[in-house]
């Protein structure tokens, strides 16, 4: 399985680089910008919809024979989003890492964008893309792909940005001493160095993506009804028809798709990217992939590979920029005037967006809307906190027990990873069916759905942490016969704490996102409403009330950013300080 070191790559991306302290003015500015743009988009979208956005209705078949094709369509959407995310990562992160001025804008922006609930603004993007290509399925297709894209691109860009900033000094000097052009340097040094982290983060983001593709395939915004051929629409149709058997078929198809994706794409990629790992120490477990070995040992593929490698080599070796000077000084003297103009322009843009959004919001919304949404947000916040605590209470002891037994880890870890990738929204109908059948209180019993899919992140991070726990520290505790209670509190829990925080951050972020689809759910014509900010956004989406969707999304983003800054980051910094020996 994947060793502890790979998990650390993942931690790096999550803790968001140099901005580890409490919220600063840059974050506030970025928040104003994002929230403002969301609200303004809502206004713009409303005007676009006026001439009736017409989305073609594709009939969705409920016969299991149609499922393989639907699954394939869903998988292809994932692939398209992956390519788009990669392109975004390579450009956005590079720009942020190369230009000090761009960095000041792009990184706080990325940080806030990461916190905006993807499913919240799905409604805008759907309407936007539909009106771009009226009468064509390309619109909804692009909207679905965009939803997946936004669920993975930010995380990947962060990982790549951080790798670019951590390129070891000696490698950097070696690269400059042979006078590589920036293009050569990018392909020879920076991309290879960032590769293991990028591949790992891509895989993690991808596992979140399945959730969003399922949610994005079938959506109705006001009068606009979207149903794209895919597993998500199949399930939506099954829910309308109250057909539990079809839900079962969809779960089966999705499971197979995820396993195939993992085995054919990511396992080989992770194993392959190991060769770029910088640390020279023999890492404890080397990821292996049968697919990769198969290809590497096949003679035909070897020759194809040689041709392809030679071609790529030529692209990477091209100078592009002739006669490049190797800069000896890393930081050129600051140009204060340009900096000042740049800052002023940025401040003006943010000021304008903030002012325009405020003006729009003032005539479309009232204070009671704000207090209603904020109040719903408190309910959702309470749910997230309680559920993360409950899930930790269950999975931390189990994860520790599993992680300390290598053989058990080897079996359980892939299962946990599969469960984390599995889109929990496919399972919602089963739970909803049960709630309807036994007439349980939706406000309480709908809550666990939020954490259904993301609790596994806690489990597998804990397993990874426990299996990376140094054996000498375990032996020391055993030889001094440390008592059970002390063993938990002084030995193992502090040791796995950074892993726990990573898992909890991912789980809570996922839970906020899931609240949009889990706080109010349908079974046939029955609607269960558990209340909360997620339910608020969903109701406003069904009603096509754009200003209030925007308000809901904005408030949820504020909650998520605040929770990250006030709870998770300080916890993470604490964990890191206390588990470092060097």
């Amino acid at each position, binding site marked *: 399985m994947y060793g502890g070191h790979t998990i650390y790559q993942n931690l790096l991306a999550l803790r968001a680089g140099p901005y580890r302290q409490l919220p600063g003015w840059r974050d506030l500015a970025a928040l104003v910008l994002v929230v403002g743009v969301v609200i303004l988009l809502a206004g713009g979208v409303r005007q676009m919809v006026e001439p009736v956005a017409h989305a073609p209705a594709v009939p969705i078949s409920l016969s299991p024979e149609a499922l393989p094709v639907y699954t394939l369509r869903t998988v292809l959407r994932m692939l398209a989003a992956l390519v788009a995310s990669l392109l975004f990562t390579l450009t956005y992160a590079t720009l942020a890492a190369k230009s000090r001025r761009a960095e000041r804008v792009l990184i706080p922006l990325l940080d806030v964008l990461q916190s905006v609930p993807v499913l919240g603004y799905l409604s805008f993007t759907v309407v936007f893309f539909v009106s771009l290509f009226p009468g064509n399925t390309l619109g909804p297709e692009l909207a679905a792909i965009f939803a997946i894209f936004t669920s993975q691109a930010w995380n990947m860009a962060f990982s790549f940005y951080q790798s670019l900033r951590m390129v070891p000094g000696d490698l950097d000097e070696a690269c400059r001493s042979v006078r590589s052009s920036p293009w050569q340097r990018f392909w020879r040094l920076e991309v290879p160095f960032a590769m293991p982290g990028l591949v790992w983060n891509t895989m993690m983001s991808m596992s979140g993506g399945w959730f969003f593709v399922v949610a994005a395939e079938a959506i109705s915004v006001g009068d606009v009804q979207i149903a794209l051929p895919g597993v998500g629409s199949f399930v939506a149709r099954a829910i309308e028809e109250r057909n539990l058997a079809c839900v079962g078929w969809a779960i089966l198809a999705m499971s197979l798709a995820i396993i195939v994706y993992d085995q054919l794409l990511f396992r080989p990629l992770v194993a392959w990217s190991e060769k770029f790992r910088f640390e020279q120490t023999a890492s404890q477990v080397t990821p292996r992939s049968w697919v990769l070995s198969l290809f*590497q*040992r096949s003679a035909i593929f070897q020759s194809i590979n040689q041709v392809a490698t030679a071609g790529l080599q030529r692209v990477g070796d091209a100078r592009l920029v002739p006669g490049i000077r190797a800069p000896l000084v890393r930081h050129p003297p600051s140009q204060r005037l340009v900096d000042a103009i740049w800052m002023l322009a940025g401040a003006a843009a943010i000021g304008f967006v903030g002012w325009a959004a405020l003006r729009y919001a003032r005539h479309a919304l009232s204070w009671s809307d704000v207090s209603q949404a904020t109040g719903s947000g408190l309910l959702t916040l309470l749910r997230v906190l309680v559920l993360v605590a409950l899930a930790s209470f269950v999975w931390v002891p189990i994860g520790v027990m599993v992680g300390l037994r*290598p*053989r058990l880890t080897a079996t359980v870890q892939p299962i946990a990873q599969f469960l984390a990738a599995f889109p929990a929204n496919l399972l919602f109908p089963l739970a909803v069916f049960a709630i309807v059948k036994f007439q349980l209180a939706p406000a309480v019993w709908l809550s666990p759905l939020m954490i259904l899919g993301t609790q596994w992140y806690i489990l597998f991070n804990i397993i990874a942490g426990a299996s990376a726990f*140094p054996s*000498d*520290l375990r*032996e*020391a*505790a*055993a*030889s*001094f*016969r*440390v*008592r059970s209670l*002390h063993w938990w509190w*002084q*030995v193992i829990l*502090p*040791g796995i*704490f950074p892993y726990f925080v990573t898992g909890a951050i991912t789980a809570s972020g996922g839970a906020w996102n899931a609240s949009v689809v889990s706080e109010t759910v349908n079974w046939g014509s029955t609607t269960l409403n558990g209340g909360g900010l997620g339910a608020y956004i969903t109701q406003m989406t069904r009603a096509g009330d754009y200003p209030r969707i925007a308000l809901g999304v904005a408030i949820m983003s504020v909650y998520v950013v605040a929770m990250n800054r006030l709870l998770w980051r300080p916890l993470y910094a604490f964990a890191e300080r*206390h*588990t*470092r*020996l*060097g």
Partner: protein
Amino acid sequence: MAYARPSGEPLPVLANIDLSLRSGEILGLLGRSGSGKSTLLRISAGLIRPSSGEVLYRGQPLVGPAAGIAVVFQTFALYPWLSVQRNVELGLDALDLPPAERRRRALSAIDLIGLDGFQSAYPRELSGGMRQRVGFARAIVSDPVLLLMDEPFSALDVLTAETLRTDFLDLWVERRLPTEAVLLVTHNIEEAVLMCDRVLVLGSHPGQIAAEIRIPLPHPRNRLAANFRALVGEIYTTLTSRMAESLAAVSASPADQVHGLPRAAINRLNGFVETLAASAYQGQCELPEIAAALALKVDELLPLVAALQLLGFAELRGTRIRLTPAGRVFAGSASEERKRLFREHLLRFVPLAAHVAEVLEERPDHRAPRERFELELQDHLHPEDAQRTLSTLIDWGRYAEILGYDARTRVFSQTVP
């Protein structure tokens, strides 16, 4: 004693070990890596259960970590999130003392080991030597009867290690520790002679006791004294004579018999031969002397010696190594000529190399997967030895240009020199 590996079939790491630790002594366990000395220490600590055999502690079978036994770890094993004081107090955890008493005893152990003033520091703030002092304080705080030390000085630099050794010996000799016996695992011969009353030399795969040597010198011991040097020489002789025996067995055995190769990288072999041939040694010298001069551990030196002898470039008499005429020519040659000579000797004296070259020659595509030779070797050798032998063979074969190897596809190929 043997012990089942967590994965796969039982693999004897240790066999027929029968040792007893007496009150008032420091017993050294000396051996090369892979001889199972750390496993033996962990069995004595109750951390590992032997797959057969019995450990008796004060007449009772030992079933797990027991009161009165404490371990000092090679890697210190300090908890980064606990202060020095809390780390030391962890050594008292099993005793169930009231908090005030626990604090008092921890502080006095910290005091005794020379850490006073550091009790509220965290391990990351300390240097390596200070960290290991915390490791010692944690071990002695419970007043153990038996102290087990797993290469406690090997992660420290020479000066720091020497200071800590001396400080510990002072406490031991002045009887300021209630500890009755110490088991010290080490691969440093001088350290063993400096500290121990008795040294057991372990042989490898499976580990067994190869020799027992008494060190009757009074403390403090002088490294330069003649009797000290003599004991160091005696231990060297024990180790090298075992090596000489096994090398003799190699040359006496039929040609189709497979033997392991020592872990001796080609660049080290080259450097070692050049040093031997240089004017300081004139082609011959005593092993302890050159080990000290080159700061080589026994673990590193003996494989080099074995390799040179195997290749016919040097001969070993007792603890004295001497270059053969071929070895002198090798040392004096320029790089192409040296390669040619090495290739000749490799194919002539190492049947395994000749065998691999032959297989590659016979195959139509002149390639062979690593597994082919791995399986062959594993019929005769311990799996670890087989892997080590193959990696040495690849290193030597590449240098001699008799074979190529692709680590990604794990395939050997023939190269035409």
